[in-house]
Every structure is written in C-alpha cells, then in structure tokens.
C-alpha cells in the first residue's frame, strides 16, 4: 500500500492538471463562469431559509443562534459531498480514453473529482464568512477561535470523500447503474444529517437509544456538526460522536483504497 501511496503522491502534478482541466471545461462553457459555483448554493440556501427559517421558524431550536448561518455552514459542505457522490461515479468511465492510453496511477482520477468539487466549495465559502460578519454587526454573534475547527472539518470530510470516490468510481465500471442508484441515495442522505435541522431536534425527539445510535453512526452527521461548530461552537459533536465519525472516515478511506486496488485489473479490462 505504501508504494502505491507514494506513486499517487508523485503524480500530484497530474492531479492538479486534471482538476484545472475539469474546472476550465466547466466554466468556459458558460457565460457566468465562476459565478455559477456561487449561484447554485445560494439559490438552494435561499430556498431552505425561506421554508425552514421563515415558515417553520427553526430558530427556536438553536438557542437563538442565527438559523441562516447554521444553514449555510452545513449546506455548503453538503453540496461538496453531494457533488462528489454524483460525479465520482463517472470519474473513470468518462475518462476512459486517457486511462487506457496513458500510464498514471488510476487513483488520481477519482481523487481529482474530490479536489475539483472542493475548489467549488472553497469558492462559495466566502459567503458563509460574509453572513457571519453581517450577524456579528447586527446580532449577538461573535467569531471565535472555533473557526479553527473548519480546516479540521474539511480534512475529515476530504478523507471520507476520497474513500467514497475510490469505491464508487471503480464499482461503477463493473456495475453501470451504481450511478443511478447514487442519485437516489443522494436525496435520502441529505435528510440523514443535521444540515437543515439542528441536531438538538433529533436528540430531543425522544427516539429510542438504539435508533439514535444508528443515526449517529452515519459519518455525515459528525461531519455536518463539525462544519456547524466552526461558526456555532454549541454544535460541536460529543466525544462519542466525534470518535465514531473519525473512525468511520478512516475505515471508509482504507476500504476505498483497497477495493480500488483489488478491482483495478478488472476495471482496466472493462474500460
């Protein structure tokens, strides 16, 4: 495994190249270009803000913390996850031409998708800071050192997504409708984590302990809470939730890595 990781590390320039190509192809085809990566999350955030912030007044469950800030801090990170779930499946099939003619560690293709989507997330991140800044002037809200949680949250999520991308991209070559299955799963997973609703709603719902444990076993829950906590420290996950999430992310990463290695010969024949 180590020699393999070294090979991928050596190909990081290739990785950068693929990511840059993906981003240019995506944005040169539209007039709005870079603004698209802002427009989409903003439109989604505005919709949820209207429904859950205004109509259902979720504010009450957050101890008075600003709902909009809660929403965008989780939603933008979810959009990263969601985009990876959707597009990592085709990371190998869509680039079959390159993969079957040029020898590079094949892992760079799915990993490239994770990074590509990460940069789109990064492009939207200033919006979260802007909203936090507005609240710090107008409401009883303050930035704190908890912002340092953000890089950690991103790292955990990145490790998780790389594992997922390796799994999905190679599985999709052997079973082509993994892709369709994922678009269904994508919608369900969105509601499986505290993104639009606060975690407190779940813990105070009176659901039985075993059900809560199943809920918390979803690594997306811990990841979402970490992202919220960077701006709203009260949301920081409990020790047990944090430990579960970290363990799972590492396991998924390793599983993805080994699965990819295992099916690589078969994948290359099928492409």
């Amino acid at each position, binding site marked *: 495994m180590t020699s393999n990781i070294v090979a991928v590390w050596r190909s990081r320039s*290739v990785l950068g190249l693929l990511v840059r190509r993906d981003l240019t192809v995506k944005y040169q085809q539209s007039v709005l270009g870079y603004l698209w990566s802002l427009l989409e999350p903003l439109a989604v955030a505005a919709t949820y803000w209207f429904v859950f912030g205004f109509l259902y007044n979720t504010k009450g469950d957050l101890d008075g913390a600003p709902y909009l800030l809660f929403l965008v801090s989780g939603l933008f990170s979810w959009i990263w996850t969601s985009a990876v779930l959707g597009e990592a499946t085709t990371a190998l099939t869509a680039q079959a*031409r*390159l993969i*079957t003619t040029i020898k590079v560690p094949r892992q760079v293709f799915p990993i490239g998708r994770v990074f590509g989507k990460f940069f789109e997330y990064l492009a939207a991140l200033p919006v979260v800071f802007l909203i936090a800044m507005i609240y710090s002037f107008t409401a009883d809200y303050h930035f704190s050192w908890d912002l340092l949680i953000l890089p950690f949250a991103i790292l955990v999520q990145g490790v998780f997504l790389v594992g997922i991308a390796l799994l999905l991209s190679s599985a999709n070559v052997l079973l082509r*409708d993994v892709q369709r299955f994922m678009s269904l799963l994508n919608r369900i997973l969105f509601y499986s984590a505290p993104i639009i609703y606060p975690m407190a709603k779940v813990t105070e719902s009176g659901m039985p302990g075993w059900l809560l444990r199943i809920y918390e076993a979803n690594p997306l829950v811990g990841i979402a809470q970490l992202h919220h906590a960077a701006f709203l420290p009260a949301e920081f996950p409990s020790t047990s939730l944090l430990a579960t999430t970290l363990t799972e992310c590492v396991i998924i990463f390793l599983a993805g890595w080994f699965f990819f290695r295992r099916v690589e*010969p078969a994948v*290359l024949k099928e492409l």
Partner: protein
Amino acid sequence: MGQPIIVADNIGVKFVRSRRRNTKLRDFFVQGGKRRLKVDEFWALRNLSFTINAGEAVGVIGRNGTGKSTLLKIVAGVLIPDEGTIHTYGRVAPLLELSAGFSNDLTGRENVQLVGALHGMSRDELKEKLPKIIEFAGDQVASAIDTPVRHYSSGMRVRLGFAVIAQLPHPILLVDEVLAVGDKEFRNKCYKTIEQMLSDGRTLFLVSHSEGDLKRFCKRGLYINAGHMEVDGPIMDALDAYNGLVRT
C-alpha cells in the same frame, strides 16, 4: 546490445467472454446467489516471456484478435496482467488505439498540453515543443489547432497524436498500427522520425500488418498466435511463420 529494458515473465491475461458489458445491479442480485452465469473465460495471452534490450526494434505480428494490442497495453502499463510480471526500465511513450488519448471536447492545443503533461512533460518543455509538434502534424492540423478534436479527421488525430509522442524523451516507443492511417507524405515523416529515434538508441515496439514497415525497422520479430508466442527471433523468421499460416 544494451541492457534489458522490457522484461516480461510468463505473462497471462484473461478475459471473460460472457460478461455483459453493462451488468446491472438487478442482475447482480438476481444472479448473485446460486444462479451464476456460466463463466466463459479465455486467455487473450498466456505464457509469454521475453526480454527486450535497449535499442532494439521489435515487430509484433499476428492475425487480428490474437492479443497484439493487449500485449502492447501491458507493456504500456495500462492493463495489468492476471499472471506473471512485466518490468520496464524507463518510461514508455505509447501510441495506442490510433489516438494518444485525446478528449473530443478539448481543442487540439489543449489536448496536446494535457496529454504531454500527463506523459511527464514540464510546462516549459511543452511551451518549447508545442510549435514543433504542430509543425510536425502538418498544415491541416495547424489551422485547426484551436478547434475541438471532435471535428478532426482520423488522419489528423493520428498525426497530432504521433507528433506529441514523437517529442517525448522516453526511451521506449510503442506504436500500434498507426502508420497505416496517415497519407504518404506523413508516413515518410514518421519513417524519418522513427529512424532518428532508433539511431538515438531508443527502443521500438511496433505492431503492424505491413511487411514493408516491419522489415524496414525491425530486426527482431515476435509472432503471436492465439495468445501464445510462436516465434521469437529474426523478423524474417517471424514473417515467414505468419505468412505460412495465412497461406494454408
């Protein structure tokens, strides 16, 4: 002769014939249990061993579907053998499947930059060599270099592909049936380039059906039939064995 540069030891590649290309999850679950599809495996290549030394020019001969391209892909490292091992001591510049791996929606220039960089050319090298590559590919390609490769003719693609590969400094050159597609003028250019490369001491691995091309460059021939090595010797012997088979 120089050092060994490609060492293949008992290589075998297995394909599954009955495997449908687009297996669906449903099939997987329905047939996942006991009712498995009868697995019809066949070996595209088996028990292949050879050593190629630096500076050699080797021609690979065989009928269609006998595993020549599969062998080339293994040497290029884009296919992993199920049995045996292959070692290449030095980077490989491959021209496989008549295109160098160009993507249809990128322009010729972007493709050259992408493929060149994936093959390990640095940005400065690329900048320096881009005019050479375009010039080598010919006027037709030069005037279309900023349009998507989708609109290129197959001849133009091959020319641009060969132009990129020819500029790589890698010691091993793999060529799969490329010379057959270009026109006469381009073929002569290719001949010159290949001769130049051989005199530089690079190693050539050529798959071709053209006896002329094979005799022109190669001293050694591998004749492959039904996935097995029939002849590994002087190119004339390999050609004779191949012709003998085709005539009968």
